[in-house]
């Protein structure tokens, strides 16, 4: 490590290599604060070439590296290695090119998601994927996590909006993956790989034209079942809204306590439906929506951007808001087929009662992406453990119903142990073939996504005990 640090210092300006223990501590976790590790060294490269040189040095020294954007990840993906280098992209924040004729922008990885939209908004364009963390999260982190947002029901995820990426491969080559080039869709494989296949250093995103009309509706229902039925009816009517979000009574209570969003009193569930597109289209869909929501006891329609923001305010602050009604909480992220929502929500209710743990439900109803907030009092002995049991059982429910253990927050370190529940050993081994092609040395963000995978080059088969190469210190298992 010491020789590596010396080499890094000769490569980068003095303020771009951090070894001071106090400063290192600021990087010890991402948005998931209960996994912590102090990085061996932190570097802040300013150019792609510098990233490549750092990665090459890591290869020479056989030292693992982890990329970090804004550190808002919720699965511990950017958790550093104590024996490794943390490569932070916060100095790479230039918007390199905006080309509205081709509806694309070329940006450095540290640029925040919202900065892209802000750069083109007054010319009538925007960048579609909009995670709730969009003010701070980096586009590089979005690429790594294949992030989504409330509007991905209609507009898709990061992978549907990235045209090209320049990456530094785990062995330090600068390679461009471009949808214009023929060949394997390595860009598609890279996006969502959580920093295990290399580091994105330049990203070309697609820009969307702002829609002609946007109508945002808040519908309040007596029960979560009624809200769920409305969601099914909307989809059944052939409407694809930009977003359909749902909150249950406890989540509404939390939002109310935090931001006084004045959602209709006494609602068992509120639904936020946003329609967008050509004005004539939106108008007709809205007429249909009104009929579908006939049994809502209140229907609010935002007439202008301020009213729209007011409707979204409660939803957008829901995660932070639960802090007001509970000393501690776990944010879960799982997906079920939309038609299983009623059964799964009922089962979550039962789990909650059984373990005496409150669960607030806030979710992207259109995609079946649940974000149950599992509430507990960390001062109460055993409560944290019970909350973890409930949180884990919710993931089991998702798998049971044919869903996924993560819809947008990624696997990271947090959920790698759930991967074998969702995928067979053969599935995971096959994914490792991709990993080994990109990263034969296993240096890129090791320990994330996959539970102790095989070594590259090892023949699949039954494994028992510690691998001899690992035991002899000749190889590391990642």
């Amino acid at each position, binding site marked *: 490590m010491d020789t590596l640090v010396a080499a890094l210092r000769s490569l980068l300006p003095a303020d771009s290599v951090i070894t001071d223990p106090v400063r290192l501590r600021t990087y010890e976790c991402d948005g998931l604060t209960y996994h912590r590790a102090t990085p061996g060294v932190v570097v802040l490269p300013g150019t792609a070439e510098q990233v490549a040189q750092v990665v090459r040095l890591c290869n020479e020294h056989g030292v693992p590296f982890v990329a970090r954007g804004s550190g808002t990840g919720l699965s511990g993906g950017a958790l550093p290695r104590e024996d490794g280098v943390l490569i932070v992209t916060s100095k790479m924040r230039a918007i390199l090119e905006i*080309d509205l*004729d*081709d*509806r694309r922008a070329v940006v450095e990885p540290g640029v925040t998601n919202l900065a892209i939209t802000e750069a083109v908004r007054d010319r009538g364009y925007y960048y579609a994927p909009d995670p709730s963390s969009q003010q701070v999260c980096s586009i590089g982190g979005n690429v790594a996590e*294949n992030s*989504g947002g409330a509007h991905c*029901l209609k507009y898709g995820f990061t*992978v*549907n909006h990235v045209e090209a990426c320049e990456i530094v491969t785990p062995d330090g080559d600068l*390679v461009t993956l*471009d949808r214009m080039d*023929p*060949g*394997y*869709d*390595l*860009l*598609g*494989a890279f996006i*969502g*790989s959580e920093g295990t296949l290399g580091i994105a250093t330049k990203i070309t995103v697609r820009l969307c*034209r702002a*829609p*002609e009309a946007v109508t945002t509706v808040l519908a309040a229902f007596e029960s979560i079942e009624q809200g769920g039925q409305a969601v099914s009816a909307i*989809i059944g009517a052939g409407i*694809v809204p930009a977003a359909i979000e749902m909150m249950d009574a406890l989540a509404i209570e939390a939002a109310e306590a935090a931001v006084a969003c004045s959602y209709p009193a006494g609602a068992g569930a509120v639904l936020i439906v946003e329609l967008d*597109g*050509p004005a*004539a*289209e939106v108008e*007709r869909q809205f007429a249909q929506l009104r009929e579908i929501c006939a049994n809502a006891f209140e229907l609010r329609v935002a007439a202008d951007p301020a009213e729209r923001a007011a409707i979204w305010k409660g939803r957008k602050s829901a995660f932070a808001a639960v802090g007001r009604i509970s000393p501690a909480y776990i944010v879960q992220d799982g*997906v079920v*087929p*939309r*038609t299983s929502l009623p059964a799964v929500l009922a089962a979550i209710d039962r789990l909650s009662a059984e373990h005496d743990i409150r669960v607030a439900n806030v979710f992207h109803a259109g*995609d*079946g*992406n649940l974000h149950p907030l599992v509430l507990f009092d960390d001062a109460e002995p055993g409560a944290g453990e019970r909350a973890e049991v409930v949180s884990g059982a919710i993931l089991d429910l998702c798998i049971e119903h*044919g869903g*996924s*253990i*993560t*819809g*947008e*927050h*990624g*696997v990271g370190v947090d959920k790698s142990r759930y991967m074998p529940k969702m*995928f*067979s050993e*053969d*599935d995971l*081994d*096959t*994914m490792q*073939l*991709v990993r*080994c*092609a990109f990263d034969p040395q296993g240096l890129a963000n090791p320990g994330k*996504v*996959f539970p102790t995978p095989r070594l590259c080059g090892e023949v699949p088969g039954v494994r028992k005990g510690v691998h001899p190469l690992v035991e002899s210190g000749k190889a590391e298992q990642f």
Partner: protein
Amino acid sequence: MTVREAGPGDAVNGVRPRWVALPETVGEIAAVLRAGAEQDLAVVPTGGGTKLHWGPPPERCDVLLDLCCMNEILEHAAGDLVVRAQAGVTMDALAGMLAAKGQELALDVPFTEGTTVGGTLAASLPGPRSFRYGTARDLLIGITVVLPDGTIACSGGKVVKNVAGYDLGKLFTGSYGTLGVIAEATFRLHPLPADRRWVVAELDRAEVAPVAARLAASQAEPSAVEVDWPDPGGPLTLAALVEGTAAEARAGALRELIGGGSPTTEQPSWWGLIERDEVLVELRFLPKDTAAVLDAVAGTGLALRGSAVSGRVLLEARGALTEDELAAAVARLRERARAHVLAAPYDGLDRWGRVSGLPLMRRVKERFDPGRRMSPGRFVGGI
């Protein structure tokens, strides 16, 4: 499972296999590939066989793995807008079943006769509406593949939102059968649009780029803007499509942007169609280069069809074209666009042009198919 001796009609771009195997289950595909691995047999998968002549001939081919018997639609969850189908299901059969439920897979696969789910994925050519809905890789949410050693692997699943693990579906989409066999696929669906309108106009070549730019930026949101230029030198037809309950009103808006044209509920007869593909060249370019690309095509004598807004068109040779003529045309086109020769009966051509990630692609191929038994030599860089 049926295994028969191959006949002359089973040749893959001129290379005759020894056997044709027709598996009926994923397990049988695995059995064929395992046997192939034991005996070092080269395998080429096929669905409808409509484009087996695309790409260079395989270096060797012992078994043609015909997926036509894997033709079951396994699950249609209408309320979830999701369908899971075996690779050999024809796009026609799939579309018919979905239409009966008011839904569609928003991929245009125009020459539908026999075209299969697996072949559509493995070739992954974007159709007209990819401008709005994306290509096959964007609509695929889960996949089951069989690797050259017989391993059966899944990735993704049957929910639209899923970021667990690597997306093998992306990797296999557009892999031309060189990594393994696609056995099953799960797609996200869309409701069938309530109404469709095309606005069709005749334009001069110079008008295309500005009209396309206006349409692409339009809040009337066309689903597709296609051009048909059968005889570069002659007139050019542009057709723009809008879909939805207000299609009629929006078609009016398109007409204004185009500066004329007639709205119709009839799909133009040439829409998304390729008539002759003995020679077929794909061009990809940035929309702002549209005018320059049209100028370059004008000199080649190739007929053009494709999207004026996505920067993707196909060129076909209506008449005879020698290898030298084609090579000269492609060289000229490469000054303006990426040009890929998808089909040509010649050996000496540089079919793919620049491929920036080629070393990484080779490494992926080596990991998945170390014995080079899957469609060897059929893809970029001789992969």
